[in-house]
């Protein structure tokens, strides 16, 4: 990695493929694509050393639009394919682009195990809380009661949160961002790209056709300041249009407080710490659900420095080769007990 093969400085243009983009007008995926195309040339990695792997779904069309190496594979399996690629090609920067159905329903197993192992993959989950490519069925992140084509009387299938799931699986980097906040998304993606180990980013992504407005409260100009909590490492959890609200912890129970009321000051507020190896803290804030109760946190929930699977694998190989020497085929075939017949 890190060798620039091309003499011309890379630009966003270099990462745009010749394929016509086939997402619906107004789809949040466009933003993510544009930002990643903008981010990659700044990372100091040669274009040929990027590989984008995806599964099936709207978001999984992503690799076709990137002028890098890429594979549009089968439903839910991208993390497994990407793991095999990264394990054998640690020199590559391997990205997985997935969706809520692809990663959390059909591919749930690969998703959690990739994070458990801490393979050095960047996993970007475009969560629109709906099945778009099959035209509007509930997904594992659809809200209870939601009416979709497969739940005409309302969804009774309890959703789970991708961030909490990733934390539960032991991911070393977990973050969330929203598709229409380009500055925030750019920063989160940059953090993910430079993290060593599995970097998981959930993007709240609007499906303009089948689930328009799913994140309206968090993304709408009028409400967003009051309904989202921007996580900043080492800073107290303050939010609100007037920056006068905060999160305070009573025992293990969080509560929303107003600064200046009943003597509450910033010193009473919870300080965000993304480096806690214990997942209790990050899990606690991952449970903040949409208003009216709590603001929805965006930003980096956890960023830990911990050995990656691919590093450990290389280390083991080096140890074995140092102690046993490079394997030699003839001795291998002749190993164990042999006997000779003249």
């Amino acid at each position, binding site marked *: 990695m890190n060798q620039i093969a091309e003499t011309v400085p890379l630009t966003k243009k270099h990462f745009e493929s010749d394929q016509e983009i086939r997402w619906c007008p107004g789809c949040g995926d466009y933003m993510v694509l544009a930002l990643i195309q903008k981010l990659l040339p700044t990372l100091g990695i040669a274009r*040929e050393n990027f590989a984008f792997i995806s599964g099936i779904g709207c978001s999984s069309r992503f690799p076709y639009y990137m002028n890098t190496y890429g594979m*549009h594979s089968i439903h839910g399996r991208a993390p497994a*394919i990407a793991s095999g690629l990264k394990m054998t090609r640690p020199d590559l920067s391997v990205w997985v682009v997935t969706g809520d159905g692809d990663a959390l329903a059909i591919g749930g197993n690969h998703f959690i195990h990739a994070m458990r192992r801490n393979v050095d993959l960047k996993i970007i989950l475009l969560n629109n809380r709906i099945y778009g490519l099959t035209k509007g069925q509930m997904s594992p992140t659809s809200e209870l009661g939601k009416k979709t084509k497969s739940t005409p009387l309302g969804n009774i299938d309890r959703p789970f949160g991708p961030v909490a799931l990733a934390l539960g699986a032991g991911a070393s980097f977990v973050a969330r961002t929203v598709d229409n906040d380009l500055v925030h998304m750019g920063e989160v993606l940059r953090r993910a790209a430079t993290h060593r180990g599995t970097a998981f980013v959930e993007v709240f992504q609007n499906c303009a056709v089948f689930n328009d407005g799913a994140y309206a409260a968090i993304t709408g100009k009028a409400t967003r300041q009051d309904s989202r909590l921007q996580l900043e490492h080492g800073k107290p959890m303050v939010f609100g249009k007037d920056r006068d609200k905060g999160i305070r912890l009573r025992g293990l129970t969080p509560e929303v407080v107003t600064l200046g009321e009943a003597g509450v000051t910033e010193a009473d507020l919870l300080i965000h710490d993304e480096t806690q190896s214990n997942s209790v803290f990050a899990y606690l804030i991952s449970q903040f659900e949409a208003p009216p109760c709590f603001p929805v946190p965006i930003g980096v929930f956890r960023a830990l420095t911990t050995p990656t699977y691919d590093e450990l694998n290389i280390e083991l190989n080096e140890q074995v080769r140092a102690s046993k020497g490079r394997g030699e*085929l*003839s001795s291998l075939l002749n190993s164990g007990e*042999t006997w000779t017949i003249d």
Partner: protein
Amino acid sequence: MLRTARVADSEEPRAAGLAGKPPSETAAPAARRIEELDSVVIRFVGDSGDGMQLTGTEFSRAVAKAGHDYSTHPDYPSEIRAPAGTLFGVSGFQIQYSSRPVFTSGDAVDVLVAMNPAALKTNLADVRRGGIVIVNAGAFTEGNLSKAGYLEDPLGDMSGYRIYEIDISELTENALANSGLSKKDAARCKNYFALGLMLCLYSRPLGREIDEIRAKFSKKPAFAEANVTALRAGYAYAEATEMFETGYQVRQRSAVPGTYRSITGNVATALGFVAASERSGVPLFLGSYPITPATDILHELSALRNFKVTTFQAEDEIAAICSAIGAAYGGSLALTATSGPGMALKTEALGLAVMLELPLVVVNVQRGGPSTGLPTKIEQSDLLQAVYGRNGECPVPVIAARSPADAFECAIEAFRIAVHYMTPVILLSDGGIGNAAEPWLIPDVEDLPTLDVNFRTEAEGFHAYARDARLARPWVRPGTPGLEHRIGGLEKDFLTGAISQDPLNHQRMVEVRAQKVDGIAEELPKLQIAGPEAADLLVIGWGSTYGAIAHACEEAAAAGKSVSHVHLRHLNPLPRDLGDILDRFKTILVPELNLGQLSKLLRERYLREVVPLCKVQGRPFKVAEIVERIAELC
């Protein structure tokens, strides 16, 4: 049949009841007659905790060192440790060894060593009339008899067999009285007592086995010495007792000169893959999920990190093949190894590999099916799944190993096809091949085939799906500047590989994928016919039935039958010369451990009637079963 082991016939008086009598260390060895044999079939059976697999393996090792050809058949229950004494907990290990080439582990058992009543009950029927039965009399307690479902002691009437009752439990315990081992630990050494006994009876030296035990248990010296004591006690007992009036010796074999080792199919498969990697210079990757009876391939390769080998125990069968697809995309010789149920799970990903046109090897060590079926038993019922079992027009080359040693060559052949044709390849083995051992004439590395691997690096004129003379597309490693491209499971343009929904392009792509796989037959060597080039009967087989068919055909030919044998390694595509060969025979017999799957393929391909011979009992063919059918047909 070639086996000429002949022990005195049945109606011998039952051997004197010497159960429990300790061997006299000082007694001079009985002056025993040594009978020379051409071949013998011995089966060790006991509880799954009795160590019979170890006893059998060690006995095989001893005869291998004497230069005999042999074949083994381990037969164990799928329970890890079934309740002691039960019928379903019986574990067995059969070996046939001979002064001549051995093809199978043998039909009828000459010598049965049964460690308890359940073992006797489940195996006695396989012993030939007049055969030897050695039982551990100490295990024939009321409780064990009742667990085995015996209403009365079967040892009371063993007419037709030569029965030797020896209280192996007590003799072992006595021998270890001063070892300091607990009674329970001492009891665990009785398999070595049985081994010592058999080594003596079959005139094998003890010294090597003692070294073997000390090496094997080097970390537990007390246990090693206890086993050595038990082994010696068994040997001394057989030497001293007057119970055995005859000892046996299998005649020396005149084998092909060279260096040999004992090898199981799973180990041979793993070594073949390493050879493919070493001979091509391309690193090897195995993504695998543990499944009986394929797991040993994972074990074997996981220990070889000093080669260019990466192994990955995936979270499931799907991840196993998908990780291999990722590794293949990255430029490794990638494979996954599994058995029937895992194969079913890998199906969709295999289709992806066909679309991506990446080299990949999928090993299916078949077992009894459907579903979980008979996990530890032999069957060949996944052939049609291998050839056809995917959505869409999805051709995959299929090859099959015929024996443990052949699995080595097949592993290399699988990667040759995968790499030269840029395609996934299915390599069929089975539980019989995977776990059975036979002597293997170790090849010279220089004689092994090399694999031609060319990664494309030239950007000029590059198209992801442009094809060479074999219709293979270029293999490009990510990281190659200027060749960035995208591939995927959607239908793609004939040349560029960009997504294409064009109707005529789809037909063209479906056809070219089929032609590519069909074209593999162009480079296959001519089929070997064992027997006359034209005759009354041709027996066609594939996979692990090789030994039984070859043996049966030899026997039938010796009896004057006009019969030949062709054994297929390549099952998809079928070799080009097979059609002509079929035309030269009046009748075609196809023995298979399924309900006639190769028969179906042959009928479909050649519009030729064939006679299936089907067995699906979780057991290999007996030679006699095939001989009988041959006799009916010609």
